[in-house]
């Protein structure tokens, strides 16, 4: 659990209400949380915050989640950063796109709180 508490998570979503919910949930579990409301903001905060996990919304205005993931992967310093996609788009094609963009896990909206926490913890432990 120490690991958990020390793990830093960056939440990226253009929906502030979802960010509110995620932030509360993850902080409750002891994660250090940072928020970004669009792709560019996420990339900006990445270098300073250096999160272990990025929870990434796909459908965002401007740069979409896949593009953000690709850019994260381009940077060698982000080698250990895990990406969890969080999206309302739940088709298989979208999932494949997500994995190929460098995401480890794909969670569809609306998500179950427990499942989300469990997935994040799994990623922290085994990812």
């Amino acid at each position: 659990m120490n690991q958990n508490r020390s793990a830093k998570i960056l939440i990226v979503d253009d929906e502030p209400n979802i960010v509110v919910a995620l932030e509360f949930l993850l902080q409750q579990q002891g994660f250090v949380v940072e928020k970004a409301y669009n792709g560019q903001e996420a990339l900006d905060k990445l270098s300073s915050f250096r999160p272990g996990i990025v929870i990434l919304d796909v459908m965002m205005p401007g740069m979409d989640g896949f593009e953000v993931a690709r850019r994260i992967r381009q940077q060698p310093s982000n080698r250990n950063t895990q990406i969890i996609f969080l999206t309302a788009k739940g088709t298989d094609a979208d999932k494949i796109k997500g994995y190929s963009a460098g995401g480890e896990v794909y969670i569809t909206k609306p998500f179950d709180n427990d499942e989300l926490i469990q997935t994040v913890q799994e990623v922290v432990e085994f990812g």
Partner: protein
Amino acid sequence: MSGAIIIGCSVAYVGLLFVIAFWAERRAKAGRSLVNNPYIYALSLAVYCTAWTYYGSVGRAATSGVGFLPIYLGPTILAPLWLLFLRKLILISKSQRITSVADLISSRYGKSTWLGLLGTVIAVFGIIPYISIQLKAIAISFDILTLGGQPGDHLQVPFYADTALYIAIALAIFTILFGTRHLDPNERHEGLVAAIAFESLLKLAAFLAVGIFVVFGLYQGLPDLFTQALQEERIQRLLDLRAAPIDGWSWFWLNLLSMSAVLFLPRQFHVAVVENTSADHVGKASWLFPLYLLLINLFVLPIAFAGLLQFPGASVDPDTFVLALPLHSGQELLALLAALGGFSAATSMVIVAVIALSIMLSNNLVLPLLVKSQTIQERYVLDLPQRLLGIRRISIVVVLLVSYAYFKSVGQAYTLVSIGLISFTAVAQFAPAIVGGVYWKRGTKIGALAGLLVGFVIWAFTLPLPTLCETGILDQSLIEQGLWGLPWLKPYSLFGLEGVDHVSHSAFWSLLFNVAAYVGVSLYTRPNALEITQADLFVDIYKYREGGTDYDVMRRQAKVADVTLLLNRFLGPVRARQVLQTYSKQTGKELERLPVADAELVNFAETHLSGAIGAASAKIIMASVAKDDPIGLEEMFDILEQTREIMQYSKALELKSEELQATTRQLQTANEQLKALDRLKADFITTVTHELRTPITSIKALARILQDTADLPEEKRAEFLGIIVGESERIARLINQVLDLEKIRSADDGFRKEVILLQPLLRKAYAGMSQLMEEKQIRQSLELTSTPLSVKGDPDKLTQVVINLLSNAVKFSPPGDGLIALRLKKRGAEALIEVADNGIGIAAEDQELIFGQFTQLSDRERGKPTGSGLGLYISRQIVERHGGRLQVDSKPGEGAVFQLFLPLVKK
């Protein structure tokens, strides 16, 4: 024997011939041709055996022993070559529609009118003596039967009292009835051929009957006859070739002359080539015909010797032995049969010869003259066939009367054979031009003209001319002194050649000069294009037939110039040049070096013409060029008419296909629209789904937090509940808007139509929003014109639009420094409602996009605004349903003015 019986028998015999001819023509029309077999063909060729053979051979044998034979040995020697030469002539003639020997020569050398003319003249001059001896034979046989064995004197009696004249007239009528009852384009007369074949049978049978009677009736078989005959020295000498009046030189020339005669005599050419029903008959005929000749010659020497034994001291003309022998033995019936045989031999020759000459005269002499004269052509073009028959009939009468005149003035003084040989020598002049024409491509028109002319002049000078002298019509001194007193111009010893008989003398010189002129001049003259075409067609006839038995194959050839002309005419010069260049490139043939277009080029051109004028027309046109017939006016008209129809048809098709294409395009467009709609629908659903999921996600997550976290601080609890409520409203709003949209889309009936005064409506909407604007510290401005403006429509919907525009303005107004104005103005016949803000503004390229579904511009810059993205879209739909326009006027950073135009209600 009374003249009445003989005339009666003759008339009955002629009647029988008519019956046979009529029957044959009936069968031909019924498709069961009587004459379409090699036996009839061979028998019809036996028209070669005339009164000359029938009476003259015996006469000749009585004076020169076997000297009568070369005339029949020649055809026999030539017979093996018929399959090569005669068959070739037939194939050529059928493919070229040749109607006479003069036509053949004319056709071969570029369809020369002059050659046709010269050929006709030679034939007429050459054959008239020949016809005259037939008249003589008939007249004499008539005399002998009626006058009891003595020929009458036809020289002294005036012509109106001369039986020979009436025989000539009767033969003219007979020939007219036989040969000119109707016009056949191929000059085929099956009835005539059948009658001729029958006559050949009759004369053979009659002659054999006389021969058998003589050998076995008067003597006890051949050995007995010969034994008795050879006891007489004058007869024995006849069989000793060393002492006989005929030598190897003369014999050879007679062979040669008869070889040409059997094919080139006008009547022989007519039956062998023109009347031929199938080239395949030639093979069998080439041994059947020699067999016929053998049979008819078997008893010639026995009859001659018997005559010499029976009538010593030249009391009877040997030419009449065939009649005299039975008559003097009291065999009147046999004599009558013999006379009928002779009559058939003579009539068959006269009929065919005169018909052949009349065809030549009308086709190669009179017609060219008629055609040359435009006015006559115009006048008679309509009844040309009738006109042609008239010409034929006149020709027949003229030929027979001239023949009679020749008989009356010259013919009587000479034997049948000697006059016949004059004709043979004349006809032999055709041989170089024909044989050369069929086997030697280099022979030219000028060469053929030169050869024929020289040969004809020498023939006339060395054979018929001296006969005129000898009979006293011309000065006798010509023969002895030579022309103009020049000794080397003596008719019977030209250039001093002496010691040979007149016929071989004439044949030698005329043919020598003929061949020399033909070959020499040909080598020094150039053939024109048509001559080259024809030469190729004649010489290579087998090549053209190899592709198939169809004669059309041969026509697949034309002059390059003609093909070019046609292509020019129908494709235009530029395209035509391209086509020909393409051909040159593909085949590697240089067209300039190719005077004759081969089948390949013709096909190539036809294919390209087909594209322009249709395949049928192209074929007709190409065929007319390829066989070198000029395209007739009527034919051309037909083609043009056909082409026009085809073009109309193809134009109609084109229109149809254009219509179809248009329909297809429409359908495609409709399909695209449907697809687009479908895609839009799918996108819409995806978007709506996404728009629904987003608030549900927040609600669900936060609700679970509230549920799971008992020790949640109150402010958090309140915040979360607030969000949940807001997101629920968002969902409700979205659902309402989607329903609105559906309503707008589906029908107009969701709209009330009532007259609305705009000022109160705007005030009400403005009041509804002013609370929110005050909260956001936005400066507000309401500027409504005092003029009451009314529009027609649904007040709720219009209020919705205005509120939507105002809430958008609120959304994008800078917090704390916002400025929103709602204005109403009159713009012509329209009311203009403006909602202005001082927000971020909208880039020009985005100003249309914002009216689309789920397009939220602000997203790009700063997070997602509240709202579904459907607001402006729905607003525009509503405004348009009211007959108005919704647009935006904005620059980035300078705020935006949404302008709503609505048509005013006229008071």
